């Protein structure tokens, strides 16, 4: 792979890749499933060493004085997927958007508490630097109105003042698409408009676009809510494949999805973190009444 003229992306995934048992197992699980989703068992999930990437300490977010998130402390680790569940308006999306400080785009938003990335307060980081390290994928797929190639290359091109050529970028683009399980489907059409892809492909393209800038943490804000079951399964496979490489936080309305993809689950209600634990703890032996009511479908 050629050298980039710009600060080269940190390439720390290649060693991971060799020792990655997740990929074959998750794909076979997907093919075995044949579109039918077995809820409880999910896909085989190899144990990966988990390393803390992010941590929030007593994080509170308020919009114009009205509190949306109250004192939430959570750890986000590489090697395990954290799912945020809870009814609409419980602050889980606000919490997610605060992790890359996207919430501070809103002029009325105020923040209390601390957000740490790799042991360092995010306020000490350059905003753009933080957002490159903490990628985000939105509820609605939002590919840019450009070609597939340019969508993926966008983040790499924008990080330096000198723009690398297409030839230099190509391996990076293909690798990002490959990591997002999309390369096979689009490798012959890289110059096609990204908006012509199907919804599920668009969402995987958005994930690939985030992966192209080599994030340490990936935030997924209800990534499947606009997708059909097949595309949802593809995204879930992808999440399970990526969990050994980067820390993933996923917000979801869908409790089956949380059980399928998550290692830890945090239940939020009216801005409070009610309960947090492993999937079994939260779904099978919830400690709090509100959690029990929610996961058993009494409200939500």
């Amino acid at each position, binding site marked *: 792979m050629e050298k980039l003229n710009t600060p080269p992306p940190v390439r720390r995934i290649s060693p991971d890749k060799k020792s990655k048992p997740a990929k074959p197992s998750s794909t076979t699980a997907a093919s075995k499933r044949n579109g039918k989703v077995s809820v409880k068992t999910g896909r085989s999930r190899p144990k990966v060493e988990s390393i803390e990437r992010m941590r929030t300490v007593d994080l509170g977010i308020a919009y114009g004085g009205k509190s949306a998130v109250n004192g939430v402390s959570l750890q986000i680790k590489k090697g395990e997927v954290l799912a945020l569940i809870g009814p609409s308006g419980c602050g889980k999306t606000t919490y997610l958007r605060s992790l*890359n400080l*996207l919430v501070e*785009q809103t002029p009325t938003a105020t923040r209390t508490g601390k957000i740490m990335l790799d042991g360092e307060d995010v306020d000490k980081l350059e*905003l*753009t*630097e*933080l*957002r*490159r*390290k903490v*990628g*985000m994928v*939105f509820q*609605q797929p*939002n*590919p*840019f*109105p*450009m*070609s597939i190639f340019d969508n993926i290359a*966008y*983040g790499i091109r*924008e*990080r330096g003042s000198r723009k690398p050529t297409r030839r230099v970028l190509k391996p990076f683009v293909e690798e990002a698409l490959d990591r997002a399980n999309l390369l096979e489907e689009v490798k012959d059409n890289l110059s096609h*408009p*990204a*908006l*012509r*892809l*199907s919804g599920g492909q668009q969402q995987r393209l*958005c994930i690939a*676009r*985030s992966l192209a*800038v080599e994030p340490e943490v990936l935030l997924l804000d209800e990534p499947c809510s606009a997708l059909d079951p097949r595309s949802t399964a593809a995204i879930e496979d992808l999440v399970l494949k990526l969990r050994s490489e980067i820390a993933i936080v996923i917000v979801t309305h869908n409790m089956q999805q949380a059980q399928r993809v998550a290692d830890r689950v945090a239940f939020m209600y009216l801005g409070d973190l009610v309960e947090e634990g492993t999937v079994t703890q939260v779904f099978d032996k919830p400690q709090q009444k509100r959690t029990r009511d929610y996961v058993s479908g009494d409200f939500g």
Partner: protein
Amino acid sequence: MGITLRKGVFSRLPSLKGVASTPDQRAELMLGALAVGSLVLIGFMIAFVMGEAWPSFANNGFFKWFGWGGNTDQQLEGIFNSPGDPASYVYEIRTFPLLYGTILITGGAVIIATVLSVLSAVFIVEFAPEALRRALEPIVKLLAAVPSVIYGLIGVLVIVPFFDQVFITEGAKESVQYVIQLTGSNITVAVFILTIMIAPIMIAIVVNALNSVPDSWSQGAIALGVNRWRAMWTVVVRAARPAIVAAAVLATARALGEAIMLSMVSGSVSFSPNPLDGLIFFLEPARPYAPAIVENSEGLTIPPFGQTIYAFAAVLLFSAGMLSFAGWFIRQKLRKYTLTPT
């Protein structure tokens, strides 16, 4: 079905029965007729102007008509004074100074206005404080509606004298005194006022376009670690390029057809400003086609003169048509990636 009008003109037209028996069908027919009618009217107008202009082009030769040689103003006078006998009509004219003046003034104004309007629109949409934005948007729309003659008045009463007194020195006058007289009416004033005239409508169009670009695109860029300014340029403005082209086409059409204001401030001399004159180039007058038409309208009844003026109009008509087509073509190209799956 089966509803008939008891009163009104349609109930008395038996031929419409069957063809247009429902209100919807009647409305369709009416609107269709209006649309076809206006198209036919435009077609006739184009044919008429071209037909009237034909002798002027034919007698000079098409390329020579646009070429240079002689003094265009004197040639116009020659045509005006041509003998009454149709066999000895004078047609000779070389309109290069008019063509050059049109391109120079229109092109200059459109280029400056495009840059200006994109920058202002980006500021209004993305960076202006809420209160300022709320004030600016209606002001811009108001400015877009100001009649051009008002700009012309301000130009001729304020800016032209200002140029005359401040920029046009004796030295500048002397350096070109055998070629042209500098009065303060010049291409810079013309381009300046024309820019001010066309920029508001462009700003209004581009602001609308930027506002209609989905927020999720700039959010996506910002989430990738791109700052707001870059996200605006690389995603939002990029996505709004078809509208920017549309705005530029509209502004060019307006600038091409602007006659009164330019006639007041551009100097009204068929002169080709010479870039070799250095800075004085910017103080030299010019005369685009549209003001040339207005200024010579008193001689339209003299056949060869009228035909010459029609030829000016034909050039404007043709350029406007070409402009629309080019704009459409560029927009198609730019829309390639914006199209959602069909």
